[in-house]
């Protein structure tokens, strides 16, 4: 074990020095840009006297920053390189890796804490294995960040100049915070075996907390820049920025994106780690290995589902704030040219829920006591698949002219109504509820309750679910089809709350009911069919693709604006591409990401390989 660790450390030390250098380089680059940016008047820039460039020498007043009016000539191009696709892919790859390296410390911290509470070393070992996977990913995140920065500077210099003048200070802090992030991450990882036992373990956990705090702050800073582009704030009615960076950062969409990305990162991180575990499971040769990776995969899936459940609500909140900022933007998003994108999203989310549930159902086979629940699984499947079908039913149909005439309109007479939001909300709430129910069944599968009030408890659970589903249907159908828009939108809130209340109450009730429960038999970790592992891969691939799609919509909703309604995009690529095109770029990105992630996973096990000396070295 010691030898293994020494090898790990030796291999990573080389990378570590390089990462420090990269962090320093990024910090220097940003410093140079922020300090040196103002004052360049490039060829082809606007002739109007309105553009503020240099502050008057000797003046103390901050420059009022006007958004420039650009022309196509202001965008440098590299032959054979499509600027938009380049920045798009690099930004998305950066985001995928960043989501992963931010997510892993969150659940590693929690797992470590659980291990400390239960004194079960398996948790500690698993946490350590998770963080090991993310170390190389951290390098790639930094590389892609640097590449993104350079792409923006080279291909969109005016945009970056503008953004760096609005956000200069925060960009500086962002770069400097990476010293803290790196320090915390390396200390957390390299110090894992050293900081063991008693006070040192608490110290180690604190380092993990610091790591998470710094990582979250970094994400919040970057979120400010990107949401400013979507829903700018801190500008006067003429679009001029007068220096209030906090107002610019604290725009309409900042907190919704913060919340959504925080939760989504956890779900995503869980799915990537799950894919890692699934692959190690399939390639395992010994039963103990299979058992270990099966357990790891289960935990990863659990983390992914746990974060997946509240995610649609965070997404809904984000969309609601988009509407609040600009009705037009909101309508374009869901009722205009991007409406069909949400049908694609529905397919992807349905895939996620189906995979996660399928994995849980397959996993029930680990328990000898699961047989008694087998007959209920088909009902869960029917409910989830039914909801998925409702969710992905479009409002407007894909029809030829003849079909349009025959049908008398673009909507199906009976299925069309399922295409509107209230039906979708009901469907997703039902999916979430039944996923929680799957999880409850899984938990129960290996235990027999010993409390006296089991029958009562079960009756209560059943009643809770029945009342809840009835309420969801009432809110969805009555308010969805017999009232107006304002009521329809408002009714989605009690729907959300119903689902969340049921989940919390039922899990609490179940925990109490199964206190002191008898185990049927020890869980047979490793006794799970190979196809269950494919469900984990599907989870990871679908999540990645979905994130890519949502990245497209986040950026695409700005259409031909760099900063909505303020700074117009005058580049040759300013047009909004078709969804098919966007899907192709996202697919390309997903494949690239997969290749890089495979490299990351492979690397994490390379360090444990040792080739014996066969005469290469001189005899001592």
């Amino acid at each position, binding site marked *: 074990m010691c030898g293994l660790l020494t090898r790990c450390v030796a291999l990573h030390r080389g990378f570590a020095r390089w990462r420090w250098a990269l962090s320093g380089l990024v910090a220097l680059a940003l410093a140079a840009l922020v300090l040196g940016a103002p004052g360049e008047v490039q060829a082809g820039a606007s002739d109007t006297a309105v553009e503020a460039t240099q502050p008057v020498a000797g003046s103390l007043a901050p420059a009022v920053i006007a958004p420039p009016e650009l022309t196509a000539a202001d965008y440098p191009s590299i032959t054979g390189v499509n600027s938009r696709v380049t920045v798009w892919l690099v930004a998305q790859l950066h985001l995928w890796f960043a989501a992963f390296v931010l997510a892993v410390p969150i659940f590693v911290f929690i797992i470590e804490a659980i291990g400390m509470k239960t004194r079960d070393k398996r948790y500690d070992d698993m946490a350590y294995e998770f963080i090991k996977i993310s170390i190389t990913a951290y390098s790639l995140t930094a590389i892609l960040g640097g590449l993104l920065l350079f792409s923006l500077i080279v291909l969109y210099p005016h945009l970056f100049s503008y953004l760096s003048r609005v956000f200069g200070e925060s960009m500086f802090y962002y770069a400097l915070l990476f010293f803290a992030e790196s320090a915390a991450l390396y200390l957390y990882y390299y110090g894992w075996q050293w900081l063991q036992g008693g006070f040192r373990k608490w110290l180690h956990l604190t380092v993990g907390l610091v790591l998470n705090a710094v990582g979250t702050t970094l994400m919040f800073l970057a979120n400010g820049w990107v949401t400013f582009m979507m829903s700018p704030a801190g500008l006067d009615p003429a679009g001029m920025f007068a220096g209030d960076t906090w107002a610019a950062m604290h725009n309409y969409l900042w907190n919704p994106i913060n919340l959504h990305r925080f939760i989504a990162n956890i779900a995503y991180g869980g799915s990537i780690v799950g894919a890692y575990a699934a692959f190690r499971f399939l390639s395992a040769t010994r039963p103990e290995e299979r058992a270990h990776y099966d357990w790891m995969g289960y935990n990863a899936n659990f983390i992914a589902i746990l974060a997946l459940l509240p995610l649609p609500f965070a997404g809904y909140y984000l969309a609601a704030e988009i509407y609040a900022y600009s009705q037009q933007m909101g309508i374009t998003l869901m009722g205009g040219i991007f409406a069909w994108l949400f049908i694609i999203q529905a397919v992807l989310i349905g895939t996620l829920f189906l995979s996660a549930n399928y994995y849980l159902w397959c996993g029930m086979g680990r328990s000898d006591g699961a047989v008694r629940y087998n007959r209920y699984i088909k009902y869960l499947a029917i409910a989830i698949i039914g909801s998925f079908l409702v969710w992905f039913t479009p409002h407007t149909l894909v029809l030829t002219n003849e079909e349009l005439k025959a049908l008398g309109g673009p909507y199906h007479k009976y299925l069309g109504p399922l295409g509107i939001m209230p039906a979708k909300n009901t469907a997703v709430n039902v999916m979430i509820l039944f996923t929680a129910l799957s999880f409850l069944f899984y938990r129960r599968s290996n235990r027999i309750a010993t409390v006296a*009030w089991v*029958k*009562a408890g*079960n*009756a*209560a659970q*059943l*009643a*809770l679910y*029945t*009342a*809840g589903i*009835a*309420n969801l249907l*009432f*809110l969805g159908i009555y*308010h969805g089809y*017999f*009232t*107006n828009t*304002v*009521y329809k939108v*408002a*009714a989605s*809130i*009690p729907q959300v*709350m*119903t689902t969340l*209340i049921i989940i919390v109450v039922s899990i609490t009730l179940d925990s109490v009911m199964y206190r002191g429960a008898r185990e049927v038999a020890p869980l047979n970790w490793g006794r799970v069919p190979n196809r269950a592992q494919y469900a984990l891969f599907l989870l990871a691939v679908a999540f990645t693709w979905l994130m890519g799609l949502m990245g497209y919509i986040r950026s695409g909703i700005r259409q031909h604006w760099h900063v909505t309604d303020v700074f117009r995009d005058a580049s040759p690529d300013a047009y909004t591409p078709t969804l098919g095109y966007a899907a192709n770029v996202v697919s390309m990105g997903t494949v690239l990401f997969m290749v890089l992630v495979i490299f990351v996973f492979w690397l994490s096990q390379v360090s444990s390989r040792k080739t014996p000396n066969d005469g290469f070295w001189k005899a001592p």
Partner: protein
Amino acid sequence: MMNNAPLLFVITLVACALLFLGLDMAVMKLNGLTLLYHP
């Protein structure tokens, strides 16, 4: 009574239904609306 599952089911069902309805009314009221739509 605690062991009469069907009875407990009905009681809990009614109780939960009322609670959920109360929740609906409270949330709609907070938004300046009523539970039922009066055009």
